[in-house]
């Protein structure tokens, strides 16, 4: 199964919009939303027939049994995360990091560890299409494991899969990179966008995944778009094109209409980019 991953560094560059266009053009039968912090892809893919979910567990968290608690306060003293409140002694779940120190010091055996659901992994199908995604419970930390689980669900479900990656540079991005064939970086022409772009490219290179770059909303700042083009030339990264800012794209997304059907400058640009991306994939 060949896998294409879209990354951006910074959020809001238009990764999901581009991913949607590519999914429609390639008629990919397997796709995943790895942006588990703020999943969006499901909003534009229409409805599916079959849905399965399974829970995603974080480290078990401490719970104090008030009936056994002798109010010695040792747990409160040792907790480094301010996760234990006084009067009465109780654990504040979203602050508890599951380290178990309190369970080791409690003289009354009043503290137990309870499984905590940190999110849900979802699988949706219709016909021969498979869509994998996940949602995180509020306040939870994103981890690479959840992204790995999301990717596992579409493994070998089709010949070609598109992964909508997560923003940032952290572990979820690294987890999304392992085993993919090609990364498409969706950059935006802004100073903050460029610095974030460079950091993600660094990560992708360390994992030896081939990268190609496009600039979205390129006409917002033509000078910075050129700077990105120049940077790619210097770093020998294939620069596959630009997409202009297009109000039609916003309108299409909002009305649930296919960007490609609606047409417009962004739609045309994405179609050109799609052909170039497929060529890059075939050449690998």
């Amino acid at each position, binding site marked *: 199964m060949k896998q294409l991953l879209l990354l951006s560094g910074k959020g809001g560059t238009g990764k999901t919009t581009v991913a949607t266009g590519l999914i429609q053009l390639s008629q990919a039968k397997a796709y995943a939303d790895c942006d588990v912090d703020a999943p969006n892809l499901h909003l534009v893919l229409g409805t599916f027939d079959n849905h399965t979910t399974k829970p995603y*567990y*974080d*480290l078990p968290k401490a719970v104090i049994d008030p009936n056994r608690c002798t109010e010695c306060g040792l747990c409160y003293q040792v907790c480094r995360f301010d996760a234990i409140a006084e009067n009465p002694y109780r654990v504040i779940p979203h602050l508890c990091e599951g380290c178990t120190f309190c369970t080791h010091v409690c003289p009354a055996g009043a503290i137990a560890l309870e499984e905590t659901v940190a999110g849900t992994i979802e699988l949706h199908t219709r016909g021969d299409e498979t869509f994998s995604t996940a949602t995180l419970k509020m306040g939870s*930390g*994103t*981890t*690479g*494991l*959840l992204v*790995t689980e999301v990717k596992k669900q579409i493994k070998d479900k089709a010949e070609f899969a598109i992964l909508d990656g997560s923003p940032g540079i*952290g*572990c*979820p991005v*690294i987890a999304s990179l*392992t*085993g993919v064939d090609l990364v498409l970086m969706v950059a935006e022409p802004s100073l903050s966008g460029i610095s974030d772009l460079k950091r993600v490219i660094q*990560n992708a290179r*360390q*994992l*030896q995944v081939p990268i190609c770059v496009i600039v979205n909303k390129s006409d917002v700042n033509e000078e910075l778009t050129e700077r990105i083009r120049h940077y790619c030339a210097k770093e020998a990264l294939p620069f596959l094109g630009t997409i202009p800012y297009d109000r039609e794209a916003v309108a299409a997304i909002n009305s649930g209409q296919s960007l490609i059907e609606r047409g417009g400058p962004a739609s045309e640009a994405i179609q050109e980019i799609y052909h170039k991306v497929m060529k890059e994939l075939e050449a690998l």
Partner: protein
Amino acid sequence: MIIAIPAEEKSLDSVISVNFGRSPYYCIYDTEKEQSTFVENKAVERSGGAGVEAAQNLVDRKIDALVTFRLGDHAAKVLTTAKIKVLKAVNLSIADNIAKVLDHSLEELNEVHPGGINKG
């Protein structure tokens, strides 16, 4: 010598897992006895520290060499400290990779990727 290889399935025909720390199984092959066993990877469900735990488990099994596509830097440190050889896997079955180890035709794995978790 004892070789470990991350396995997607419990079979010598299986492909080698792309992930080291979260590989579902490891094939442990004893070249002298010409025997293979498949062990479950206890670290597979971890949200962090999977590489370290998986590496520690293999160290405890006294392996001499690991054949893998990729390795995170934490796991790499554990294996290097334990003087375990790390060889770069090729895109063939486990059985084929074992044959290549015996043939001395696998290269050493020199690149490691960043590891660790980044919560929040």
